[in-house]
């Protein structure tokens, strides 16, 4: 029949549909060549001859969703359900996954990468809706390495050109604090350790805000700061009973993992609180230390804004002038305050001069002083002396010794397999 293609052998257009033992065949009426035979065809050019081709070589792949992509989309939906996310999140995450899948680099990626991609899409969706989901949480759920997750996350954000907002700290505090199992008495949690959720949440939030203001949050993982803040908040609400409990024990009975940096964040936070306490007259007399200051956290938080302003001077100006400013001005300012104090403090007692408000990494002394590199006068075209090169070459004797040593080592490693 005309218009049905040409015979590959003789080129004639006279192809006839014939059936041979109930198998449909296209046969050339001139030379008798069988053009198609049932569904057993393998070449792409067959499609040009109106013959059937395998699925992977047809264009159907672009129109339908591949099995791998279907699996990925199912994983996205499952992950959203496990995390109990609102239903709208699911659709957004699925859309991101499909968008990512259109790129050939993602389509050809390993299964492990596709699995992590599922987590990335869910994470991006949550971030855009200010849902506080940490990368650590997703990595735990997916049994993925944080490094692998990190590289794929950065890649996909760049590839899709997405605007991902930062983790919302306030929301994270609420979610994380709620996960502490301290709000009801249980066999592991004695009555004096049980705390009211609202009170703890509000105090933790205030402490985290204080940490943010005093440079303890920038550049650090947010979670350990919140753990330390939660611990301090919990302790300060009933200090008499709870001061004896350590951070590690607290996390254990609250059934929450203790992140490693939390203890150093705790020390930093206590140091800030101590500095603030120095500015309150009735606390100055008590000569607080890191344990006793916990009892007064409530007061300190109540006046935290003004106390921070008083306790810390602008670190930036100080660093720039590098001590040109006399530190005495801070004390001069305090004179009036001391004079008005009804307690009548002795002359020597006055608040400490304001400390520098700087991130802890800037307050620590440098580990080693890096000298300015000497100005080099190398031109790149100097003569290279032979002796300088010779020092890097082995003498023939050394070569022989080295070869002998290598051979001996080979022999030694291959010996332990006697026949």
């Amino acid at each position, binding site marked *: 029949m005309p218009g049905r293609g040409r015979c590959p052998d003789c080129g004639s257009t006279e192809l006839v549909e014939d059936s041979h033992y109930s198998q449909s065949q296209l046969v050339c009426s001139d030379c008798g060549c069988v053009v198609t035979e049932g569904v057993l065809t393998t070449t792409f050019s067959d499609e040009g001859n109106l013959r059937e081709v395998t699925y992977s070589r047809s264009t159907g792949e672009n129109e339908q969703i591949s099995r791998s992509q279907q699996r990925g989309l199912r994983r996205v939906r499952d992950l959203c359900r496990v995390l109990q996310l609102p239903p709208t999140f699911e659709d957004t995450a699925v859309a991101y996954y499909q968008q990512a899948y259109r790129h050939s680099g993602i389509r050809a990626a390993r299964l492990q990468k596709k699995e992590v991609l599922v987590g990335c899409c869910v994470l991006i969706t949550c971030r855009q809706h200010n849902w506080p989901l940490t*990368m650590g949480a997703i990595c735990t759920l997916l049994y993925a390495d944080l490094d692998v997750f990190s590289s794929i996350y950065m890649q996909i954000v760049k590839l899709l050109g997405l605007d991902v907002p930062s983790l919302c700290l306030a929301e994270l505090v609420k979610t994380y604090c709620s996960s502490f199992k301290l709000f009801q008495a249980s066999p592991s949690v004695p009555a004096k350790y049980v705390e009211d959720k609202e009170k703890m949440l509000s105090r933790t939030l205030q402490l985290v805000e204080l940490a943010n203001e005093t440079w303890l949050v920038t*550049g650090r993982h947010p979670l350990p700061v919140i753990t330390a803040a939660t611990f301090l908040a919990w302790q300060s609400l009933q200090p008499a009973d709870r001061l004896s409990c350590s951070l590690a024990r607290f996390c254990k009975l609250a059934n929450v993992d203790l992140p490693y940096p939390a203890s150093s964040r705790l020390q930093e936070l206590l140091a800030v609180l101590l500095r603030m306490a120095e500015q309150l007259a009735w606390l100055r007399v008590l000569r607080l230390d890191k344990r006793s200051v916990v009892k007064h956290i409530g007061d300190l938080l109540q006046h935290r804004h003004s106390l921070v302003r008083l306790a810390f001077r602008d670190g930036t100006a100080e660093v720039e002038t590098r001590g040109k400013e006399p530190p005495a001005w801070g004390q001069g300012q305090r004179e009036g305050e001391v004079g008005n104090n009804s307690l009548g403090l002795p002359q020597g007692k006055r608040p400490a001069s304001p400390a520098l408000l700087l991130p802890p990494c800037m307050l620590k002394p440098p580990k080693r002083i890096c000298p300015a590199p000497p100005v080099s006068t190398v*031109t*790149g075209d100097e003569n*290279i002396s032979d002796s300088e090169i010779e020092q*890097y*070459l082995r003498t023939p004797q050394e070569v022989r010794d080295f070869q002998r040593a290598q051979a001996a080592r080979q022999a030694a490693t291959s010996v332990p397999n006697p026949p």
Partner: protein
Amino acid sequence: MASAPRPERDLGLLAGCLPPYPPPPTTVGLLSMEQQETYLELYLDQCAAQDDLAPPRSPLFNPVVPYDMYILNASNPDTAFNSNPEVKETSGDFSSVDLSFLPDEVTQENKDQPVISSRHETEESSESQSPQSRLPSPSEQDIGLGLNSSSLSNSHSQLHPGDTDSVRPSPEKPNSDSLSLAPITPMTPMTPVSECCGIVPQLQNIVSTVNLACKLDLKKIALHAKNAEYNPKRFAAVIMRIREPRTTALIFSSGKMVCTGAKSEEQSRLAARKYARVVQKLGFPARFLDFKIQNMVGSCDVRFPIRLEGLVLTHQQFSSYEPELFPGLIYRMVKPRIVLLIFVSGKVVLTGAKERSEIYEAFENIYPILKGFKKA
């Protein structure tokens, strides 16, 4: 080749820096029409610029003239000074300007000599550095220019064939001359001017590649060289180290080599040459082709803390700040194409540059942005 210079601006500045102008050369008869016109231009510019004596902005006093001329001289030493008119016409706008009328002090003692490339070895290409950036071996180039200027100032428009000999060997014998001129300052300032409170990023690492153009037997290299390590199961290259300049090289069996760890472009080149020499001494016919700087890393300290959360909010399209992954903010600057790592302590790391000027430019761009985030 050098890009075509801008004659008007350079002429004006050139004129502005010069002492009172002698009358145009009298040997007008020997000059072609274009040459006469350029002399006239110069003279008139000089007169006009007498009033506003521009401060000798050294970096800009860089008429690319001699650069062009000397490139041609270097590559065609035979034709250079004998076929004067052809040389001058073919090498750009400024090539027809003869600096012979300049008094000796200006050309020889002026620190801001134009850039020349004495590189007439084809292997050592100057592709990695544009003519406007700092070229290596300033001393020999200065000496070359000095000699040429002196020879030029002796004759007016026509350079004696005898000078060719004195000029030609000069780029090849850098240390033989007594003239010691200050290093070259190119068109764009190499060091940033005081807008950034004098903070200059320090180069920490230079990565460069070179082609030794011969197949290498890595086992033999590892056997005969003391400073080489070769573990084919781990990595398919020999890792070689030298002490001065302190660098590491990866030498592949195809003859390609990567040199890392140098603190400046010249050091990187010297180190690469030393590695090539070692390979040569081991019996391979190593050459030194296509030396190219692939990456430069610099760092500096702005000395005040930076609110990274604020920076990522205002510069969202360029910044990426994920404290869960990395404590620093990754800022991808578009022009120049440099990646900056900005930390809360005020330390900044700049990477991805192919030229030193890109690092300086990137820091100049980021400093005002960072200053905006100084206060809490």
